[in-house]
């Protein structure tokens, strides 16, 4: 079964012609794949085939334990973005980046490839100043038009500062986490387990909050 219809495949293909450097995708799944894990596998295979500058490596969450630990992957399905030199960017997608999240996925790839809009000077400086480990989790649903903005803002901070990790988490795929973090509207952002942001905030506000976490 094809994941993309012809129109979407062409649109994505067109955007990906603008990709700069190579981007390497890592996918953590397991041998007996869950339903959504299979879908994501197909999605990634098809997506990677749209550009010769996208690499895809699959790991088994159980068998490749050391890899999972190295990248601090505690659950699957997980997609990671690495740059052309295989450096971890801190950008992660837990769940399938479908629906509206296709936009944050493409934006993440573009930015990792070096094609990105400039940040305001204030924002760029504030991100650089973050000198502690920060973990940002953005809970989303695939039918939420406001969510990709929140995800992309968190991912951008991770890309600009190696101390920051930022996850898109599909609340529908990880309902137990949605319960744990009391997610009853999306986007909802959790920073270092303790600070919550409800709704999509501009990147400047997110950086400010992350810097304090």
């Amino acid at each position, binding site marked *: 079964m094809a994941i993309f219809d012809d129109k979407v495949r062409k649109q994505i293909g067109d955007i990906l012609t603008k990709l700069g450097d190579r981007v390497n995708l890592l996918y953590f799944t397991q041998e007996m794949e869950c339903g959504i894990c299979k879908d994501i596998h197909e999605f990634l295979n098809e997506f990677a085939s749209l550009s010769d500058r996208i690499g895809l490596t699959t790991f088994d969450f159980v068998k490749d334990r050391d890899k999972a630990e190295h990248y601090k992957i505690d659950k699957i399905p997980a997609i990671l973005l690495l740059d052309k030199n295989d450096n971890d960017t801190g950008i992660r997608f837990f769940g399938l980046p479908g629906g509206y999240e296709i936009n944050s996925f493409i934006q993440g790839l573009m930015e990792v490839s070096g094609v990105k*809009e400039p940040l*305001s000077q204030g924002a760029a400086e504030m991100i650089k100043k973050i000198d502690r480990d920060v973990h940002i989790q953005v809970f989303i649903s695939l039918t*939420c038009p406001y969510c990709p903005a929140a995800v992309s803002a968190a991912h951008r901070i991770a890309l600009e500062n190696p101390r920051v990790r930022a996850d898109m988490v599909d609340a529908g795929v990880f309902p137990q986490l949605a319960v744990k973090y009391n997610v009853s509207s*999306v986007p909802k952002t959790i920073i270092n387990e303790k600070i919550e942001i409800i709704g999509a905030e501009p990147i400047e506000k997110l950086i400010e909050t992350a810097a304090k976490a």
Partner: protein
Amino acid sequence: MEFKLNIGAPDTEDRVLRMDAGVLYDVIIVGGGPAALTAAVYCMRKGVSTGLITMDFGGQLSDTSTVENYMGYSYITGVDLANKFKEQVRQFEIAIADGKKAVAIEDGTEKVVRLDDGSAFRARSLIITTGKSSRKLGVPGEIELTGRGVAYCAICDAPLFAGKRVVVVGGGNSGIESAIDLAKIAEHVTVVQFLPELTADRVLVDAFEAFTNTTTLYEHEVMEIVGTQTVESVKIRNRVTGDVSTHEVQGIFIEIGLDPNTVSVKGLLKLNEFGEIEVDCACRTNRPGIFAAGDVTSVPFKQIIIAAGEGAKAALSACEYILRES
């Protein structure tokens, strides 16, 4: 599987022109919906120096699944139409401050727009197209519990209420559409309607009435939303008998219409009884050089094609004003 693609290739360094606090623009447009984007194209084609300040691109279009009444397209998704508008604007070298909220507007020899990040931009004329957003109920508990069970976007948040009990406030089209989305997955849906009947279109009411896990309370209103961490119950009053009952629910979706976004112009521009900016047939407000267009104005009927047309008119009025004043 559905993909709601709405990004193009990102604008790299040299293509995006950031707004500059040192420049006195001919026109600054506040907003990013159909009215703003149409005004932007008209201003750029007239060759006046233009800045655009907006929180997002698309405005309400981004919340609209499909549009079937914008001329030239018998069917297009809201997201696609918003993209086409944005692309048409981006052909021009227009100065943009996006992801920014205008918090105050000052009128004088120059007009000043102050943003939430502390920056300020100057112009000889302004076009206000800040549109509308969800109306609040204004009852105790609503603000405190927003995002903790109080929701305004059923397409976003409905999946989080699977197997739960929820209230939907509002019996118009958006209320009943939300109630249908929720009834598919929630344990039970109670619709609270102010009026003695539902005002949604017949097709929607029929679809809604086919569900068996719903209750509709006519001539009722929400008095209070109760909960410590999350919504636990909602107090609802019968408007005929005055009786108040408590309903144990985990969520409440508020779909009671839209309010104009006029915080930045309160006290400066004349508003009508609905809080909309009063404009004449040339989109002029009570302040010379300040124009307004689209859903935020007193112009009747809130539609994309109307907002776009009004945006064009406001731009031409602003250009004429600048010519006359210089």
